[in-house]
């Protein structure tokens, strides 16, 4: 301890009790702080897990439906159909819903109307179409049960429905099957008959319009700003506009769409065309910003090399810079499209909340999209819509996950360190 005697020093006694206690306190604070950080991470993750589990718990049931095996004695039924001439028209005129009701009453008792879904007759129609020969014999056909029975079978129905379910189970006619019509049908009034196909097709058409507009415009803007634009007032305004658009709340774009596209340009209301245009304006800044970063990361040496062998500036960009920047641009585009796919508010503004019972045929037909369909179903009073809403959410999340996964894959695959 040579230094202890040095003049003016009053060394700290680190071994003293006070110091030891103080150090212990500081380490305790350190542990608490670290634990608080871990807690924050875990709490956030737990919330995500809670959300996903809730949706799964509610939604997976939406993909199944309760079916009742209905014994149909065709010759004895009031059905007037000639097995030789089964056409769509003949089936439509045969008043199948009424016939189904009669048959069901005979097979299941007086309360049969409450047991079957309003769309039960569709199963019978499809069965006849598939094999007209059944018209001459007695056939057992699985038809969807009503919402009340469906809920009771999935164990949260009214006492009355529970009793009916118990009875049906005793008769051995109750079964659970995959609800194919949820994927192939569109919106409806009864939870047992609704499906996501209409909204899904609307989303698809809307995304096509969005992509067709925002991708070329976004890439062109990114190329112009990064490669050609001189530093002047016009460039400044473009940059400010893009950064500003990227931060504008999505609902403002809806107001723009309503006021400009619908009222000023008189484009069709509720159409995928207008929805796509509105979302394209929202997505474009995302693509521009991602595109500029991707273009920026192409090293200048490549441009110099191309210019050095006599390529024109346009050739440099289209032959060398753009292909190298493309993976980055695509990643940004997919992320922007994923955001657009989940967007709801601006589409409400332009009327894409219509009741769409038939899928749109083109971009100018009235349409709705998946998130808006979710919103509409979430407003329904009938309890059967809860699982349908959650099931639609699962479909939407699956698509978003797939898109983001693709973006991450692209980024990792093409990530280049220059």
């Amino acid at each position, binding site marked *: *301890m*040579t*230094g202890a005697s*040095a*003049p*003016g*020093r*009053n*060394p*700290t006694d*680190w071994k003293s009790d*006070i*110091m030891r206690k*103080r*150090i212990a306190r*500081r*380490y305790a604070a350190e542990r608490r702080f670290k634990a608080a950080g871990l807690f924050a991470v875990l709490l956030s993750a737990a919330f995500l897990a809670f959300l996903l589990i809730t949706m799964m718990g509610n939604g997976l049931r939406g993909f199944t439906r309760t079916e009742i095996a209905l014994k149909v004695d065709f010759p004895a039924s009031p059905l007037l159909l000639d097995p030789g001439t089964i056409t769509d028209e003949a089936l439509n005129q045969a008043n199948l819903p009424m016939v189904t009701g009669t048959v069901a009453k005979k097979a299941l008792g007086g309360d049969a109307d409450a047991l079957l879904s309003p769309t039960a007759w569709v199963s019978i129609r499809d069965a006849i179409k598939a094999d007209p020969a059944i018209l001459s014999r007695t056939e057992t056909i699985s038809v969807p049960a009503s919402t009340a029975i469906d809920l009771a079978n999935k164990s949260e129905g009214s006492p009355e429905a529970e009793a009916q379910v118990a009875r049906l189970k005793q008769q051995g006619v109750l079964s659970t099957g995959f609800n194919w019509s949820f994927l192939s049908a569109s919106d409806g009034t009864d939870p047992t008959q609704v499906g996501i196909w209409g909204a899904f097709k609307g989303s698809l058409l809307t995304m096509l319009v969005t992509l067709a507009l925002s991708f070329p415009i976004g890439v062109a803007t990114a190329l112009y700003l990064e490669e050609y634009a001189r530093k002047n007032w016009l460039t400044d305004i473009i940059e400010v506009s893009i950064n500003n658009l990227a931060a504008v709340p999505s609902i403002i774009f809806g107001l723009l769409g309503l006021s400009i596209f619908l009222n000023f340009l008189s484009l069709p209301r509720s159409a995928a065309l207008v929805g796509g245009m509105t979302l394209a304006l929202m997505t474009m800044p995302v693509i521009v910003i991602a595109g500029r970063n991707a273009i920026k990361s192409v090293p200048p040496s490549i441009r110099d090399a191309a210019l050095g062998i006599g390529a024109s500036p346009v050739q440099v960009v289209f032959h060398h810079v753009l292909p190298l920047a493309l993976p980055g641009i695509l990643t940004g585009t997919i992320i922007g499209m994923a955001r657009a796919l989940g967007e709801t508010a601006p589409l409400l503004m332009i009327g894409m909340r219509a009741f769409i019972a038939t899928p749109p045929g083109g971009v100018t037909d009235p349409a709705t999209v998946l998130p808006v369909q979710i919103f509409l179903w979430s407003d329904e009073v009938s309890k059967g819509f809860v699982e349908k809403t959650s099931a639609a959410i699962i479909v939407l999340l699956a698509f978003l996950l797939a898109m983001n996964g693709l973006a991450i894959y692209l980024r990792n695959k093409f990530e280049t360190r220059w």
Partner: protein
Amino acid sequence: MTPMTEAQNSLAIANPKMSARDVKVFYGEKQAIKGVSIDVDMDHVTAFIGPSGCGKSTFLRTLNRMNDTVASARVEGEITLDGENIYASSMDVVQLRARVGMVFQKPNPFPKSIYENIAYGPRIHGLAAAKADLDVVVEKSLRRAGLWEEVKDRLHDSGTALSGGQQQRLCIGRAIAVEPEVILMDEPCSALDPIATAKIEELIHELRGRYAIVIVTHNMQQAARVSQRTAFFHLGELVEYGVTSDIFTNPRQERTKDYITGRYG
């Protein structure tokens, strides 16, 4: 690869403040320090010299375990402070760093006031109970760092507003404020102009004896000016360690001689 022997370490220090025995440092697979043994005493300024990349800064950072902050770094061997192994589990790294202070290559005052910069250490270590005590510590530390006269009227200005040389003296004052036993200086003048450098060197002279000082420098003149002991590092090895005047006038090792005379580095 010449292993460290007593022949090269011409100094036998009886009562070393810090001593290292066969210290090896690895960054992942790469070995940066290849078995260094050295003693540092209280009464002299010790300079580590050598070409850049020779490991002198890396070795310096092992002396107060700053290498712990680098995830891939691994230290082998033994380093003691007053005979106590600083890599032992009983050694508390927080205390160690309070006892072995460090001044960095680039002045790094916190973006706080001058007063707060100095008060930071005493506050976290609980060395000043009352505000009045803290004021005393701040003034004493700034005086010792030779900065008091320049800043006494603007103690609450930002530390980052000072000139580079003043900032570095502030950082020295900050290190002094916790009453360390050893001060490690990692090329403290490399970012400064000659006048500021002269002031720091003068300060080192004044601090000598009160603290064990180890200074890393790539500037041989500076080593000759400020130190009494010099260690020459090359390629992660300690090539020669001795009294500064001996090293510069009469190096025993060929490599030391080549470096001193400017053949490489």
